[in-house]
Each structure stands twice: as structure tokens, then as C-alpha cells.
């Protein structure tokens, strides 16, 4: 199964409370995805020459202070900001993504690099949506837009790395409800292009495929058109970029989605029960997105 949620807040006054607004949406999708949950939020941008690195480790008593200290001594670069929540941390630095990636792999192979970007923070972990939300203070998040996911694993293991959102590139992420039947062949095709995978999850194959298409020059729309040709299976995909949310459903609409467009926000969820508690929902335009069509909302 799995549940997806997305929220784009148009009213600037409400952006400080995006976490609070979203929380009932994510928890509303518990029955669709009780084993893990995750979220990517797009907040205030760091400086033009800075990047945020979202990190995760499976070790509960991991020494983050030591990592932060080693980063400084090994790379001689100041950590601009280091925000830690449970076993996630967001590290902000001037350094190039490749430098950080190589350093992490060499010195802290147990730390996973979840995402890189200037606006996006990502959290994902095993547990019910309410447990994960409490662990990472989702209710306190602020930002302009976010995508979230509740997972009921059907094709690969239940680990934080297999939870959604998946990311590739910078400030770009994807959540998926469904299952892809040609993920292994897609993965082999991408491996020939030199693309590496971190998990055996089918969604990661879709994520890396779309990111690869965009690196090859496609815009999001063209990349998704290639996606319709290449992805075989059931999917509702919700994507977040630095300034937009995008949604597509497979041509057979096997997986659900409902959208509520309001003057103050756009909210997306697998089912209406995750939208029912949003403010003034009675005056929102609620509709079911058509299959094989692309919906994009700009911040």
C-alpha cells in the first residue's frame, strides 16, 4: 500500500506552521503505511555557496560531536551549521558535494548521506508515522512546501534507507505509492550509465531514472514523459523541487490521489481522510487527479 502526502503553503503567514498543518495528514495515512515514514521539507535557503547535507546513521548512540569535529580537522573547513535530531543531522558547509561524499565514505561509512541541497532537509526512519514525527519534531518544521510518505513495505526490507523520500541530485526528492515491475531492468540500464544505487528499492530506480533524465537535459515534464514510457507498474509519484510540487499517476490509476486547492495552500494525499482536518477545507476545490497527466504547483 503506502500513503503519500504533500503540502505547499501559499499564504506566507502559514509557512512557519507547515509542520503542524502537515502532521495530521501524515498520521492520517498510518493505516496505509505503518512500518516507516519520512518527509522532505523545503525551508529557508542557505547561502549561495553553501550546501546542506542530510545525514543518517543506524547507530543509536553515534557520536555526532566527533563527526563534526573531525570534519573540521580533516577538511579544514568550518561547519556553518550542524543541527542534530535523534540519529539524523543536517550539516551545512561551503565544501563541494563530492568532497563531503568522499570524506564520509572514507571516515564514516556507517553514516548515510540522505540528501544534498540548499533548501531541503530530509528525515526518514522506521516506526509508525506518529513515532517518526515525534522523534524528529515534525510538528515544529517550517517551510514553503514538503512531501511525506508512510510506507507499507511490499518489495524490499524495512530499514530507514528503504523509507521514502528518495533523492538524487540536489533539492529534488520523490515519494511513491505503488510497485514497479521492471525496477531491476531499469536499475541495470542505469548502472550502465555509471549510476550507483544505495538500496534494492524499486522507488530508488524510478528516482535515479528521473534524475538522470533531467541531468541529460530533460525538464521535469519531459523526464516524466520518458518515465511513462519506461516505468512499468503501478505508481502515484509525488515530487518536490526547490520551488514546486509535481504529481503523476500511472495510466491505469491503480494508486489513489486526492488534491485540495485552497487560496492558502495546495494539499495532496492518497486519500481524503488526510485532508479532512486542514483549515477551511470546505472551501477548497477537491478533485481526483487524472491518470497519466502531470500536475505541477509552484511556490
Amino acid at each position, binding site marked *: 500500500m503506502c500513503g503519500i502526502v504533500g503540502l505547499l503553503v501559499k499564504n506566507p503567514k502559514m509557512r512557519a506552521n507547515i509542520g503542524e498543518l502537515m502532521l495530521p495528514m501524515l498520521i492520517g495515512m498510518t493505516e496505509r503505511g505503518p512500518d516507516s515514514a519520512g518527509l522532505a521539507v523545503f525551508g529557508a535557503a542557505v547561502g549561495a555557496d553553501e550546501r546542506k547535507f542530510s545525514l543518517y546513521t543506524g547507530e543509536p548512540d553515534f557520536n555526532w560531536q566527533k563527526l563534526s569535529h573531525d570534519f573540521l580537522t580533516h577538511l579544514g573547513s568550518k561547519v556553518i551549521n550542524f543541527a542534530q535530531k535523534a540519529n539524523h543531522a543536517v550539516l551545512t558547509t561551503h565544501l563541494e558535494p563530492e568532497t563531503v561524499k568522499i570524506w564520509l565514505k572514507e571516515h564514516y561509512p556507517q553514516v548515510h548521506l540522505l540528501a544534498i541541497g540548499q533548501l531541503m532537509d530530509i528525515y526518514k526512519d522506521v516506526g509508525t508515522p506518529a513515532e517518526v514525527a515525534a522523534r524528529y519534531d515534525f510538528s515544529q518544521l517550517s517551510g514553503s512546501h514538503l512531501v511525506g510518505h508512510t510506507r507499507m513495505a511490499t518489495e524490499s526490507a524495512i530499514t530507514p534507507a528503504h523509507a521514502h523520500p528518495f533523492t538524487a541530485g540536489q533539492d529534488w526528492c520523490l515519494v511513491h505509492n505503488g510497485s514497479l515491475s521492471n525496477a531491476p531492468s531499469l536499475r541495470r540500464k542505469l548502472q550502465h550509465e555509471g549510476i550507483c544505487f544505495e538500496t534494492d528499492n524499486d522507488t530508488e530506480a524510478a528516482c535515479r531514472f528521473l534524475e538522470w533524465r533531467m541531468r541529460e537535459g530533460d525538464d521535469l515534464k519531459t523526464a516524466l514523459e520518458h518515465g511513462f514510457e519506461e516505468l512499468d507498474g503501478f505508481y502515484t509519484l509525488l515530487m518536490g523541487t526547490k520551488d514546486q510540487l509535481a504529481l503523476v499517476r500511472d495510466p491505469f490509476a491503480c494508486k489513489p490521489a486526492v488534491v485540495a486547492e485552497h487560496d492558502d495552500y495546495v494539499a495532496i494525499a492518497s486519500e481524503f481522510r488526510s485532508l479532512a482536518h486542514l483549515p477551511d477545507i470546505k472551501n477548497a476545490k*477537491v478533485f481526483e487527479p487524472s491518470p497519466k497527466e502531470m500536475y505541477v504547483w509552484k511556490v
Partner: protein
Amino acid sequence: MESLKYDLAKTPLREVNQFLHSDASLLNGKHIEINNPNGAHNIAVGLRSEATVTIHGHAGYYAAGMNQIADVTIEGSVGSGVAENMMSGRVHVKGFASNAAGATANGGLLVIDGDAGLRCGISLKGADIVVGGSVGSFSAFMAQAGNMVILGDAGEGLGDSIYEARLFVRGKVKSLGADCEVKTMSLEDRKILVDLLERSGHGDVSPESFTLYGSARTLYHFNVAKSGAY
């Protein structure tokens, strides 16, 4: 009419559904209103009495599924499988319906004022469905009996492998499924259409604006010459 009100924000759905399953003698002629449905699944499923039920808001999956005799109105929209396997009675959705609306329904009338999603009336077994808007792809797939009236358009593969159901469509059909073809509307067909338009609040719509689709009956028997097409 005696009226009873339930608020799903306060009363568990199971309690409401159990009440709706009380002996018919307790429920006949009663009007039950359900507030704050908030997209909950399985509201008013399996009713077997002459009750009228109004759901104020959006319902989730399988709303009014397996309905018998009862008259259920949903003021908002519904998720997948509204009135699936309905046997008799009436279900009215004022908003839109998601996929598989009225799937396998045997009898009764399902009225959807808005659009219906994919596979509307799939395997229809005798019920009547009137959709004020359009229906998605693969609607009336393997529909065996009953009637569908679609005031808007139909998506791809309408009536694929259809048996003896009648499909009246006012708008465009993106494509017809295997063995589905345009039929000449007989007086009897027209009478059925007029009656359904009247009963669904579309009495002002001209029956002449509809095209009837039905089975070409070429798939009824195995034909060795066509084995490659199966």
C-alpha cells in the same frame, strides 16, 4: 420522518454501522444523518432496510457498498468502490466518485452528479448507473446486465468484452473496447433512458443527444479463425 444524527468525530464508525444493521423493523422509514465523515471507509455498508441515510461530507472507500433497499445520499465525494455489489435501493453521490463506482452491482440505482473515475460499472450485473459528468477508462468492462447513462465523455476501452448491458453516452468516447459497438436505439432502449434521466434529476436532458453502445456478440463463442485475436 423520524431523524437520527450521528457525528463521526464523536461516535466510532463501527457503532454507527452496527446501528444501521439493526433489525429492519427498527429502521424502516427512519432518516439517519452522518456528520463529519472525513473520508472514512465503509460508511453505511450492507444496509438492508427502508432507511434513508445522508452523509454530510466526503466518504472514503466502499461507501454504501452491498446496499439493499436503503436510500443513501453522500453530499460530498466518495473514494473507490461506492455502491459496489449493490443489490437494490438507491445511492446518490453529489460530488465525484473515484475508481470502480458501482462495480458488480446487481440492482438498484447509483447516481453520481460529478465525474466517475476509471472502471466505473466494471462487471455490472443488472444495476443502473447515471453519471452526470464523465467516466474514466475501462468503464463497463465485462458489464453483463443493467444500464449506464453517461452525460459527459467516456475514456479509453469503454465496454470492453461487454455482454448485455446498455451504455448510453452523450459525449465523446475516447475508444471502444473489444466487442463493443454502436447500437440502434430501439423504443424500449429509449424508454429505459428517459426513465433513468428522470429518476436521476436529468429529466430536462434530451434522450436524442445520446448514443447507445452494446455488445457486438462476436466474443460469445470461441472462433478458431480468430484465435490469434484472443
